[in-house]
């Protein structure tokens, strides 16, 4: 019972960044005799768990290196037929042959229209990145916006609506409670702090400390599992009905209790902006700024007129401007909310009316409106209540209004980006001391934040919907889409034709994406890609590769990666939302690349060179990092690999500390408290009244009129309101249950299914590989644990799985974790494990959020025993 020390000739630890999900926790990997054997967290870093903590799937990371199923040489399909169940008949080819064919095809397509190339990646590769470079890369090929960026493996796990409002409200990608100072947290379809979401283990560490402090955590969720299972108060709800409950709570707070944080609403939202009868802002003809009424001077002024004290912005009353009656838009809020009673919300959501009222009152009581807190000599409003949402509640037809309704709770009590409240994080990235590269949000039109970095289609200033649409995602029309799902819509051909979209996809250049099984209706994705030339870089041949891939290039895993940029650019969803120092980690190779695998950034550079766009890409890099030092800029004609580029950019970013940062594998520096609680330091306003939607609606109505396209525009309404999700509308006596999916703490999309450690642990979890159903409901249906059932939607798509009954699940739903039900031959551990939820998601346009193009992620189903 001891180590044979005499047989150990090497025993070292290498600091690097975890790549098991997109959170990018700081880790160190132990290498013994040249073999990676163990992963721990880095106690020196705030990026990740407590001290040396790392989550189970992070700890299991060594198996991605050891997996014998890794691709070792480029593969080429020899069977021209494509589809699910068709053998691609791979043959190994040389890198030269592969890259020559890829670049030759690209050049030919680019002569026609570069938008015909879909550049895409998978969100699990965020920290296994650099994640954001596919966007620059596509730009180098001449593709503007990211309408070609069809989100792949992340797919239904991605949050168009959450990101849109995260950007608009917080200038950030994501939100989390300020665990350190909060007292009361409400979560809606979000597992922040209990294992999932951005900065998962950072949040889990901070939450654990808050739990010991005694916070109350209310979780609205269809099931009592990860978030619900750890809540002090789990409240079962139906998928997609969160906004009904949130609106009823807001109604009770504003109209019954008569409570709101008046100073906050006046100073930090656009609610004082004056509107005319049609709901649009009254603007100064010269500045085009929205106007407000100054109660003290009794005058109408520009909203940013510095002569108005915060308390003097009018929120009610009727005024006259150029002969027209005008009102602060806040006057519309109370009447709009009045229709949403707790009793009404109960009928929709199954949440008892008295519970809704109780939670609303607890929320107000804990908010301590008017209180302040002094931290490090700085005084801030103190609102120790936070309400957060993510994929679960926002992934619906009514996604934007779901997020907006939940956010309204924060707005009413002023708990945005203040101690104890709801934090967007981090909106700011200060430069490293002695270095350069700083990312700060700006205040844009109407006082709304323009985020410092946004991965994709910027949320502000608002883009004007227009045609023709230049690429497959049609973000020209779906102007609030962060990552477009439109290419997967069943009616895409008709949409493309009517919107003048002529760049029909001819090629996919993907990073480890698995969109066939991870989006929705599998066939819709196969149809999109079967006539395309599909190139992927990955460590395995996945389901998408097997069905439609043409050339598969072997990528390195993060254990073999030398990547200086891993988190420099992902700072805005990998850092700590709390008052903790900045940490930026690098990826340092722990072992030699497997076979002939190459880091995808070097392949990117090679292909860009062959296609003739390398100079343009390098210029984009210079501009992105804001390099002003001529010696460090990448010059035209220079052909550098990713490490060589890093030599320049690291010097720019870290200055004289470059070598020190490289040696320790991470950089850390102080985060000023004003950068954490920036809200009251920045003259910005939350666009809670979404006036831009009125203008969008008018423009889209005209486009629809001109093109004959039929679109549902009912949600283009400026105030958070209730809209019935498509899944809910499709319930009837036969399709009587709502199926939903959720993130299991052990899994990141589908990649983790191939990890044998995670597979073993999953098999010991009662819910991970099964279909969960309420115990009483199961009894009614005649099911018991272990029965095999079909879950079928009204479009005849069905998935099979093993029943696991549980008390802790709403009695009108069935739950399926993540993206199981896999079948790729080259991922034998994953094959056949769990069930695939995505395949039963219908993909008709009516199942998409009309504001963002986000897919509805619950579905009306019937369940029955398999024969």
């Amino acid at each position, binding site marked *: *019972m001891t*180590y*044979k*020390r005499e*047989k150990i000739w090497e025993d070292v630890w290498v600091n690097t960044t975890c790549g098991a999900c997109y959170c990018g926790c700081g880790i160190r990997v132990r290498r*013994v*005799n040249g*073999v990676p*054997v*163990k*992963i*721990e*967290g880095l106690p020196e870093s705030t990026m990740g*768990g*407590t*001290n040396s*903590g*790392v*989550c*189970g799937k*992070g*700890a*299991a990371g*060594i*198996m991605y290196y*050891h997996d*014998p199923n890794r691709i070792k040489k480029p593969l080429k399909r020899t069977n021209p037929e494509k589809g699910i169940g068709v053998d691609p008949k791979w043959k190994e080819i040389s890198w030269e042959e592969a890259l020559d064919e890829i670049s030759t095809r690209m050049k030919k397509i680019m002569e026609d229209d570069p938008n015909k190339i879909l550049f895409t990646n998978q969100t699990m590769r965020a920290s296994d990145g650099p994640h954001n470079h596919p966007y620059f890369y596509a730009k180098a090929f001449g593709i503007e916006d990211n309408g070609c960026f069809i989100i792949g493996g992340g797919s239904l796990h991605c949050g168009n609506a959450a990101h849109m409002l995260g950007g608009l409200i917080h200038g950030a990608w994501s939100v989390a409670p300020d665990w350190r100072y909060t007292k009361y947290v409400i979560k809606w379809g979000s597992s922040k702090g209990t*294992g999932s979401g951005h900065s998962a*283990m950072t949040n*889990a*560490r901070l939450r*654990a*400390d808050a*739990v*010991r402090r005694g916070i109350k955590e209310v979780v609205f969720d269809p099931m*009592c*599992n*990860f978030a*619900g*299972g*750890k809540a002090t108060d*789990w*409240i*079962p709800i139906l998928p997609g009905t969160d906004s009904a409950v949130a609106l009823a709570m807001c109604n009770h707070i504003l109209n019954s209790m008569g409570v709101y944080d008046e100073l906050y609403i006046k100073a930090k939202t656009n609610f004082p902006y004056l509107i005319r009868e049609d709901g649009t802002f009254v603007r100064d003809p010269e500045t085009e700024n929205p106007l407000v009424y100054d109660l003290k001077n009794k005058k109408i002024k520009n909203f940013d007129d510095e002569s108005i004290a915060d308390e003097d912005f009018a929120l009610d009353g009727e005024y006259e401007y150029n002969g027209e009656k005008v009102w602060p838009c806040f006057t519309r809020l109370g009447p709009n909310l009045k229709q949403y009673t707790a009793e009404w919300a109960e009928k929709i959501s199954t949440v008892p009316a008295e519970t809704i009222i109780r939670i609303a009152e607890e929320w107000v009581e804990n908010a301590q409106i008017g209180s302040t807190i002094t931290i490090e000599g700085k005084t801030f409003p103190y609102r120790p209540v936070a309400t957060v949402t993510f994929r679960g509640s926002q992934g619906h037809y009514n996604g934007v209004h779901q997020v907006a309704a939940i956010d309204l709770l924060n707005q009413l009590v002023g708990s945005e980006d203040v101690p104890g409240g709801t934090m967007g994080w981090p909106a700011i990235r200060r430069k490293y001391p002695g270095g350069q590269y700083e990312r700060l949000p700006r205040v844009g039109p109407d006082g709304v934040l323009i985020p410092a970095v946004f991965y994709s289609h910027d949320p502000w200033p608002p883009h004007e919907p227009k045609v023709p649409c230049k690429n497959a995602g049609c973000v020209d029309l779906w102007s609030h889409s962060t990552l477009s799902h439109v290419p997967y819509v069943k009616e895409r051909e008709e949409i493309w034709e009517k919107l003048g979209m002529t760049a029909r996809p001819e090629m996919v250049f993907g990073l480890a994406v698995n969109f066939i099984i991870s989006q929705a209706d599998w066939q819709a994705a196969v149809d999109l890609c079967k006539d395309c030339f599909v190139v992927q870089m990955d460590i395995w041949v996945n389901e998408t590769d097997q069905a439609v891939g043409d050339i598969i290039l072997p990528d390195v895993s993060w254990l073999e990666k030398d990547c200086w940029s891993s988190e420099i650019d992902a700072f805005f969803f990998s850092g700590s939302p709390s008052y903790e120092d900045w940490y930026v980690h690098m990826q340092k190779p722990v072992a030699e690349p497997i076979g002939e695998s190459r880091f995808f950034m070097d392949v990117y550079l090679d292909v860009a060179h062959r296609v003739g766009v390398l100079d343009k890409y390098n210029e984009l890099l210079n501009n992105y990092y804001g390099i002003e030092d001529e010696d460090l800029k990448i010059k035209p004609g220079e052909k550098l690999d990713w490490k060589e580029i890093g030599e320049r950019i690291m010097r720019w970013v870290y200055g004289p500390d470059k070598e020190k940062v490289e040696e320790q594998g991470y950089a850390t520096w102080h985060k000023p408290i004003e950068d954490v609680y920036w809200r009251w330091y920045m003259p910005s306003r939350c666009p809670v009244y979404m006036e831009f939607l009125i203008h969008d609606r008018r423009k889209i109505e005209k486009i629809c009129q001109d093109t004959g396209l039929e679109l549902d525009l009912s949600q283009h309404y400026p105030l958070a309101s209730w809209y019935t999700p498509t899944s809910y509308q499709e319930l009837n006596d036969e399709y009587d249950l709502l199926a939903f999916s959720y993130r299991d*703490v*052990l899994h990141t999309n589908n990649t983790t299914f191939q990890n044998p*450690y995670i597979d*073993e*642990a999953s098999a*010991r*979890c*009662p*819910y991970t590989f099964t279909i969960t159903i309420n115990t*009483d409901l199961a009894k009614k249906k005649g099911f018991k644990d272990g029965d095999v059932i079909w879950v079928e939607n009204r479009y005849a798509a069905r998935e099979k799985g093993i029943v696991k009954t*549980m*008390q*802790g699940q709403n*009695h009108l739903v069935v739950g399926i974790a993540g993206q199981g039900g896999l079948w790729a031959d080259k991922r*034998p*551990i994953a094959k056949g494990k769990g069930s695939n939820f995505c395949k039963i998601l219908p993909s008709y346009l009516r199942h998409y959020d009309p504001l963002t193009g986000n897919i509805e992620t619950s579905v009306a189903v019937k369940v029955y025993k398999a024969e």
Partner: protein
Amino acid sequence: MPRWGMVVDVKRCIACWSCAISCKEEHFLPPKVFWNRVLISERGKYPASRKVIYPVLCNHCSEASCVEACPTGATYQREDGIVLVDYDKCVGCRACLVACPYQQRTYYDQEKKDAEYFPGQGKTQFELLGEEIYPFQVGTVMKCNFCVERIDEGLEKGLAPGQDRDATPACVISCPVGARVFGDLDDPGSEVSQLIKVHSAKQLRPEFDTDPAVYYID
């Protein structure tokens, strides 16, 4: 002489399995063998039901029934409370498996030795290295050893188990939410003793009268 013990705060635990997987890496455990596990179930009726999570491991009981049951003295308890198995003395009778009320013991047979993490594809470098530098013996019983190697080697280096990473069990240091604390149960000032006192931490199934060294805050 300390008595090593552990406190697990299940309120903090998010059932991520880091303890179990880190343990497997630390000890090069073969497929399907866990010295740490996470038991997941639920309690109560809808809608008042609650998820129940218990990360479990060998309890290193003071009154260890496995020690009593072992006919050869292979299973023994050190003065610091750690219960170990001497593979050279173990004859594989498995009386201890039956005796352990917490089901924390595994019989290591040829099938387990031959098992591959990627079945049918041969052993990985990781598995082969494990067999070389941390070998098990077929026909013996294995279980959690409280990372005795880390504790002993740490103490030799002057480190403090429970405080210094290199002297503390792998499952404790790898927990991302700080749900596990390790230390000396006999020291009333240790963090474990304080946590037990302040939070009225409990041993699992005290009716077995084995006096486990692992306590739970729930």
